């Protein structure tokens, strides 16, 4: 089980959180057109390695937490508030 360091509550078990998807996508301009919105809503990378993602702490403070997690090793590199720019390790996988 993951242990996620919530910026407000501290380290809590994964069971208190809900995974909420890729945190790297940004909403297109309202005039961007259907293709851009289709990509924004449905199209996701499926990386093996580091991934910046949303977790919702619905069993605790109900805040959104940004998490940099390795999809292959499940290591969590950093957590922060939604506005935080979190460092993503360069190497796709740990050596």
């Amino acid at each position, binding site marked *: 089980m993951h242990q996620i360091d919530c910026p407000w509550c501290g380290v809590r078990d994964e069971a208190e959180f809900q995974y909420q998807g890729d945190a790297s996508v940004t909403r297109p301009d309202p005039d961007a057109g259907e293709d851009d919105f289709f990509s924004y809503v449905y199209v996701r990378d499926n990386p093996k390695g580091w991934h910046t993602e949303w977790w919702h702490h619905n069993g*605790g*403070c109900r*805040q959104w937490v940004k998490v940099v997690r390795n999809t292959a090793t499940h290591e969590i590199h950093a957590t922060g508030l939604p506005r935080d720019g979190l460092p993503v390790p360069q190497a796709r996988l740990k050596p």
Partner: protein
Amino acid sequence: MADLQTAAPLGEVSEFSADGGGAVLQVRPDFAMVQVFAKTGKAGELAQKLDIVSDPGKAGDTSSFAALPLSPGQWMLIADNANANTFGQEITEQISGLGYVSEQSDARICIRVSGPNARDLMARGCRLDLHPSVTAKGFCAQTQMAQVGVLIHQVSDEPAYDLYVYAGFARSFWHWLTETAAQF
């Protein structure tokens, strides 16, 4: 149309004592509870106005209520033996212009867990570390026990805990808690 009748979430149930004497559960009546939300940028001013603390995990006690921080700029204020209507109005007036108040007195029940094995009982369902080196009187947290959202307030170093549970989950949670407490 059927006549509406008031009913307590747990009916007439008010107490459970484990046969071994290790754990006692009491349903606490007559508390008033409001949730307070600070307006953007007003959390500090609001906390000062109510004389409450904002640190996660630390319940502040004023003379008339306990203030449990829930998340940034949000608190649950709990007053014993208070009138739910007047308590909400008092707080609303006090924080006028700084935040909002949501009356929650009937939204949750409160179960006090005490007795020599109170901590052992909590450990059966609570994922948080409640060892005395980590938590003491005044500790509070929102978490889940038996898959039910619980607001925990440690009210004594003995220890004793107040568990605030949604009224709709009261029977289910009480069932789990009493079944688990029976071994103590």
